[in-house]
């Protein structure tokens, strides 16, 4: 301990406040990701595989939001399927209306429904601009209402996770029950066009892939800015000691709300772009199980690290396809195991592996205990 009025040190250490190498490394990583997504993947992958990658990238977009809300904010968002679904259904409703053409009802409504015209809550989605805005703003608005209620009442931890799960279940069950207007269990299927482009054309499928890749990079850049801003520092502080933050004059509910709402918007955009990539959105893609799957990818890769969460989400989604092709049925168990192993033995995910190994090595000779896992290191 130094004296309170110690002389300032040489070579002002405050100048070292922002590590110089960090931005350079981030820029290099960003360039590499752009190169892989826009040049390597389209050259190396068949149209079918590229379509699958597009689907994985949508999962990764949800993971970006989870990285922010869970990794940085400590909010175990086990209900991102809700926001993914809101975005997805909003987009699918517009595309179904557009597919049907002016004056016609979407195919499934003619099949199951008795209605002769569009339900009132479908009508605004005939407008493409409204739809695009709604895919992001609708999930954000729902998250804002829900979050302000939940966080002000200081619901947190497992209770927050259970509440999120219940909400995902509720939305899926509601959608199933409204077969005449939502397609029920089948969901909204056979989507053929995307703002005038025919989705059966491989060229247009590629275009959708590029849109998704660009959106993912955009979300990563946005999340990175948030994480390294003052707000990002405050968010970590709230995660680690909510009460202490309160005594500094902040309302932690607002701090958490921002992360939750942003994560919801990201999930909504992911859902919206998932629809043209896959051609379908159904309750099975937004309920409890998919909500958990969104989290698993981020947990395995490293929830506090953007790169970890994104690569983890892509990796787990890819493993799911690969393994369920080989061993159908075994994947569910494997996935559960993966989640447990990651949370129990490597809470920082694969992104923290290098750091853990390094610390083990350096800690051994001196016998000093390893410092707490720096969740904020890799981003």
């Amino acid at each position: 301990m130094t004296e309170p009025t110690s002389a300032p040190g040489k070579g002002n250490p405050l100048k070292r406040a922002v590590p110089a190498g960090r931005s350079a490394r981030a820029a290099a990583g960003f360039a590499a990701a752009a190169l892989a997504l826009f040049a390597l993947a389209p050259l190396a992958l068949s149209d079918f595989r590229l379509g699958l990658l597009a689907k994985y990238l949508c999962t990764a977009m949800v993971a970006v939001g989870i990285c922010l809300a869970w990794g940085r904010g400590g909010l175990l968002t086990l209900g991102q399927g809700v926001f993914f679904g809101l975005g997805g259904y909003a987009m699918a409703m517009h595309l179904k209306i557009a597919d049907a053409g002016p004056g016609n009802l979407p195919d499934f409504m003619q099949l199951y429904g008795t209605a002769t015209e569009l339900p009132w809550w479908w009508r605004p989605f005939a407008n493409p601009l409204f739809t695009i805005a709604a895919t992001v703003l609708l999930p954000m608005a729902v998250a804002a209402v829900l979050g302000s209620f939940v966080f002000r009442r200081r619901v947190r931890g497992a209770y927050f996770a259970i509440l999120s799960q219940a909400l995902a279940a509720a939305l899926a069950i509601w959608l199933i029950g409204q077969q005449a207007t939502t397609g029920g269990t089948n969901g909204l299927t056979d989507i053929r066009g995307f703002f005038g482009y025919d989705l059966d054309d491989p060229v247009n499928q590629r275009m959708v892939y590029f849109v998704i890749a660009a959106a993912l990079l955009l979300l990563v850049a946005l999340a990175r800015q948030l994480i390294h801003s003052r707000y990002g520092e405050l968010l970590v502080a709230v995660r680690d000691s909510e009460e202490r933050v309160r005594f500094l004059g902040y309302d932690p509910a607002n701090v958490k709300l921002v992360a939750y709402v942003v994560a919801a918007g990201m999930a909504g955009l992911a859902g919206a772009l998932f629809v043209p990539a896959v051609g379908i959105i159904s309750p099975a893609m937004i309920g409890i199980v998919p909500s958990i799957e969104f989290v698993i990818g981020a947990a395995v890769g490293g929830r506090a690290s953007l790169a970890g969460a994104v690569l983890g989400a892509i990796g787990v989604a890819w493993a799911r396809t690969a393994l369920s092709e080989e061993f159908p049925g075994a994947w569910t168990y494997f996935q559960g195991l993966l989640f447990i192993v990651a949370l129990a033995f490597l809470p920082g995910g694969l992104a923290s592996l290098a750091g853990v190994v390094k610390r083990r090595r350096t800690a051994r000779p001196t016998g000093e205990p390893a410092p707490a896992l720096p969740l904020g290191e890799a981003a």
Partner: protein
Amino acid sequence: MTELSGLRVRGLRVSFDGFTAVDGVDLDVRPGDLRFLIGPNGAGKTTLVDAVTGLVRASGSVRFEGTELLGRSVHRIARSGIGRTFQTATVFEELTVLQNLDIAAGAARGPLTMLRRRRSVPEPVARALETIGLTERSGSPAGTLAHGQKQWLEIGMLLVQDVRLLLLDEPVAGMSHDERQATGELLRRISAERTVVVIEHDMDFMRSFARSVSVLHAGRVLSEGTVAEVQSDPRVQEVYLGHAAVQDAGPTAAGPHPEHAGGAHAGSAVQEV
């Protein structure tokens, strides 16, 4: 004007499930004072601070600079210029020293500032780093600081928070003699323009730095005054001799002198609540 400034507590009462931890406390602390709250375990010292800062519900009246605090939420009370520390130093372990201080300094920042990166070190933060002697450690995670340094960081956070009333719960527990000396001098300087209330068990520290003392016992103010006045109060002697200082009946029989080891007194029911 003097009536409006400082801390003014009237008839403060805090009960938990029928147990009254603070039982009608009246307390006045003026700006420039360095008030020590002492008393045996379970006297209600920490609960009193909890009530002033909004952590526990209380009845009565707590006014600071003329504004009633009771019934306000914790962060609003903090915003009206009141800061506290805790028995166990609570800093954001994974954030750096600099980040800890920057967050403490920022409750009034607008959304645009919050969403931008910190490009430079704010002036008050740099000054606080200097004051608490942690400039060299500004880039280290707060979790790697020594125990005493964490307590210093907490005091630094109160300084940049620019509070006008500081409530410190055992700020020198576990510190070495030199560190205590340095902390006391810092508190003395701080209290020149602010109101400082310190809960402390270390009687040597109290004797060296207190400008005034309030003795709490069983949820009430037992005695109040200068160190000498309080020490010569027979009721205070009785309370202390009846509690902890039995083995301490050495040369200091004239005054209360329970030399607790730092931190060995945190187990009372009241302080745990």
